[in-house]
Each structure stands twice: as structure tokens, then as C-alpha cells.
């Protein structure tokens, strides 16, 4: 009774809270990192070193007037931000933060659940997130958001194909769809998958950038393009939900990349004896460190690279990433058969 209901519930509440707080502070982290790249300081006034800035932003957005356009489709207009946010959050149900720990005399695994189709579950849930973008643009009943949302969703479904093919070659290397099994197979192979499948890593990262509508692929929501993209008509908390959903998607892609390529909760070089002092850092702390590395690279890329034009973006997705992913798949298959 306790094991099947209470402990997963506590884990769910914990992960949800941690994710939402993390997403809120990602806003501050982005502004700070981009500021430091541009040799300025970023938010410094609210709280010491600007630490309370997200709280000020949240209060401002909650107190803003909630406008619904007159001829907008009410239910769909309200549901669109929710449909974007929910898939980002429920992906955390299968991401493993660590192996089992012993708390209060019970063996508690540090993941909410481990289903035998974990990786495919993440991909399928991500494809549900496309609906929120399409419906957000449609329900605004206005030309520019509709065009921007169609552009954004076409970008998302194109890069989904490339990312899924990349993940198939990774599944062939690991031999299982379960996320915990993938981390354990990296442990058994004594090599993180980033060294076994470097091409897949690059493809997954580029695809992840495009999937989350992050620079340099953020044509759909940049302020200079199409008057603000698919969330033009949204204000107040609904806009905040779109905004936070993008950061939640970033955290999800970083967490999935950590699990698949950087060995999840594993300390580096687990088989080298004299590096065993690294085991003092707990497993979940390694996971968080690696995820933060990816998040930092996301922000770094945004601060540095110029934006892709839409046709260049689609050409990259269809004519470059998909053939490279298929070639990677073929090479992985051949190597698996030979070795």
C-alpha cells in the first residue's frame, strides 16, 4: 500500500516542485548568463545579486490583466498553454535521477517509475506538445499568430523525425528502451554513449535545440518575426505558462541528453580505481551537474549564434539531419553485427 501509492506520490510531488522552481529560476539564469556573455551584469536590484527577480516577474505576470480576444475560441484558447506545459512535466516520470537509495529502511529507487518503453514514451509525449502550439495560434483568431504557429509546428514535426531516428540508433547500442537500462548499459560498457555515438549526440543536441524552439532555431517566437509569434495574443499568466513551458522543455531535453549520452547518474571513470573519490558526490548530484552543463550550453548558444531563416531551418532538418541520422543508424547496425 505504501510502496505502490504513497512513495510514488511523494516522489511526484517532489519532482514537480523541483521542476517548477527550477523553471522559474531558469528565467533568471538565462538573463544572467546572456548578460555575462555580453559583459554586463543582468538583474542585480531585486534581492542580493538579483536572486529574487523571478518572484518579481511572477507577481507582475499574475497581476496583469487577462485578455481573451473577442472572437477567439474560449476553451481552446485556455487549453493551449496547458497542452504545451503538461507534456514537459510528465516526461519527468521516467527520467532516472539515480539508483536505489536506502531511506528509513526501505529501498527507494530515485526515479518515479521505470517502464519498459521509457524512451519511446518521452518521444510520444513530446509529439503531443506540438498541439499546444498549433492550437495557441489557431485559437487567437488572428492572422500573424496562425501563420507563426503553423511555421513553428512544421519545424517541430520535421525535427521530431530526425531526433527519433537518432534515438533508434541509440536504442540499438543500449539494447533496451528503458531509461534505467540505458544508464546501466553505459555502466557495463564502461563508456558513456557520447564516446560510442558522437554523431548521434550532435544530432540529438541540434534536434533538441530545434524541438524546444531555442536559438538559433527560434524563428517562430522571436520578437522581430511575425510580431511575436504564436503567443502574441496571450497576456498575463497564460503567456507565462507558454514561456515557462519552453524552459521546462529545455530542462527535459537536457535531462534526457544526460541520461542517454553522459551516463545519467554515473560518476566519470567508474572503473578507474584511484578516481573513486568522485563517488563521494551523490549520484543525483552528478545528474544535476550534467544537466546544468547542458542547460548552460543551451544558454551559451542562444547568446552567441545568429538566427536561422525559416527555409534554411527546414533545409537543415530534412536534407542534412535526416540523411545523417539514417547513415548513423546503418553504421550502428553494421558495427553491432560485426562486433
Amino acid at each position, binding site marked *: 500500500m505504501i510502496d505502490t501509492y504513497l512513495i510514488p506520490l511523494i516522489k511526484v510531488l517532489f519532482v514537480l516542485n523541483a521542476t517548477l522552481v527550477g523553471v522559474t529560476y531558469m528565467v533568471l539564469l538565462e538573463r544572467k548568463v546572456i548578460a555575462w556573455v555580453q559583459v554586463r551584469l543582468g538583474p542585480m536590484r531585486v534581492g542580493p545579486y538579483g536572486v529574487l527577480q523571478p518572484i518579481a516577474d511572477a507577481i507582475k505576470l499574475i497581476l496583469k490583466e487577462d485578455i481573451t480576444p473577442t472572437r477567439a475560441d474560449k476553451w*481552446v484558447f485556455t487549453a493551449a498553454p496547458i497542452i504545451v506545459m503538461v507534456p514537459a512535466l510528465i516526461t519527468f516520470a521516467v527520467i532516472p535521477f539515480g539508483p536505489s537509495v536506502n531511506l528509513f529502511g526501505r529501498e527507494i529507487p530515485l526515479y518515479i517509475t521505470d517502464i519498459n*518503453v521509457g524512451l519511446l*514514451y518521452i518521444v*510520444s509525449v513530446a*509529439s503531443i506538445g506540438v498541439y499546444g502550439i498549433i492550437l495557441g495560434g489557431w485559437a487567437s483568431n488572428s492572422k500573424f499568430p*496562425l501563420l507563426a504557429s503553423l511555421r513553428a509546428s512544421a519545424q517541430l*514535426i520535421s525535427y521530431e523525425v530526425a531526433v527519433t531516428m537518432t534515438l533508434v540508433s541509440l536504442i540499438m547500442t543500449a539494447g533496451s*528502451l528503458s531509461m534505467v537500462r540505458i544508464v546501466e548499459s553505459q555502466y557495463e560498457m564502461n563508456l558513456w554513449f557520447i564516446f560510442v555515438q558522437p554523431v548521434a549526440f550532435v544530432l540529438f543536441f541540434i534536434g533538441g535545440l530545434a524541438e524546444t524552439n531555442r536559438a538559433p532555431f527560434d524563428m517562430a517566437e522571436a520578437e522581430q518575426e511575425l510580431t511575436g509569434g504564436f503567443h502574441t495574443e496571450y497576456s498575463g499568466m497564460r503567456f507565462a505558462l507558454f514561456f515557462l513551458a519552453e524552459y521546462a522543455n529545455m530542462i527535459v531535453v537536457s535531462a534526457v541528453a544526460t541520461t542517454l549520452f553522459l551516463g545519467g547518474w554515473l560518476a566519470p571513470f567508474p572503473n578507474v580505481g584511484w578516481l573513486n573519490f568522485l563517488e563521494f558526490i551523490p549520484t543525483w548530484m552528478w545528474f544535476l551537474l550534467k544537466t546544468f552543463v547542458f542547460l548552460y550550453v543551451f544558454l551559451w548558444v542562444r547568446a552567441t549564434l545568429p538566427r536561422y531563416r525559416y527555409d534554411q531551418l527546414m533545409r537543415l532538418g530534412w536534407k542534412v539531419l535526416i540523411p545523417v541520422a539514417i547513415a548513423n543508424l546503418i553504421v550502428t547496425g553494421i558495427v553491432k553485427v560485426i562486433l
Partner: protein
Amino acid sequence: MGEAIAFYVIAALILGFAVLVVSTKNTVHAVLFLVLNFLAVAALYVLLTAQFLAVIQVLVYAGGIVVLYLFVVMLVNLKRPPEDHSAPQRHPWVGFALSGVVLAQLAAILLFGGFGAATDSSVAQNSDLALNNVERIGMLLYTDYLIPFEVASMLLLVAMVGAIILAKREL
């Protein structure tokens, strides 16, 4: 007990959303109800321990095919509002009555047709189908049913080429 509750709830959702798909006047709402219907069917597959098929249902059906429908609905809805005027000589109640009669016939066959619990053990080949679902399906697809698998890939290629040619503005 839990399985029965889950089945009845999911079945109610499936049938409810299906009725809403067929009866809503606004086409975009009908497409959204179709998505919810497919998600409920995926939940039913999980109940039937077909986990791989459940995620494939969400990924392909709800996340791919219905997005396609949504795009087309948006493109054809731009000019005029959806209208469902019926010709004056059409009587929709005939259609309802016919469907109801056929459903009653099917139900009668199923309930009184004398179908026993067919536990023909010679058919059961994969005893660990629920636990190693992906491995068993993969083995079947690549050994016994390899030819239908390859034919399905040809079919998808042909459909892709056909859809591109049909939807282009000028050839």
C-alpha cells in the same frame, strides 16, 4: 476490481469522445475530441499490457495523423465557416436507426453467441508478452512477419510520394 473500474472509465471516455467527434459542428473541436479518443485508446492498450502499441498509438496516431488532420482543417477553414447543411430530403434518423439496429445485432451475437473462453493453448506462443513486450513484438516483426513489414514500408513510401504530388501547387 481495479481493472474493472479502469476498463469502464476508459471505455466511457472512448465512446463519449467518439460520439462527440461524430456530432460536433465545429470541425476543430471534432479533431480535438479525436485526439482525446486516441489517448483513451492508448490507455486501454496499457490496460491490455500492450505497452509498445500504446506508445506507438500516441506517437503515430495522436501525434502524427491527427496533427495532419488539424493542419488540413485549418487550411480549409480559412475561407468560410464550416457548414453542415443537409439536403431537405435527407432524414438523419434513418442513419441513426440503422446504426442502432446493427449495433444491437452485433451485441446480441456477442452476448448470446456461445463464445466460450477460448484458451487454445496451442496458439499461445509468447508467455512473457506482457513483460518483454518490445522484444517479443520485435522478434515477430523481424522473423515471422518480415515480408509484411517490408511491404508496409513500401506502402508508406508510395503514400509519401503520392501525398507530396497531390498536394503540390504545380507539378
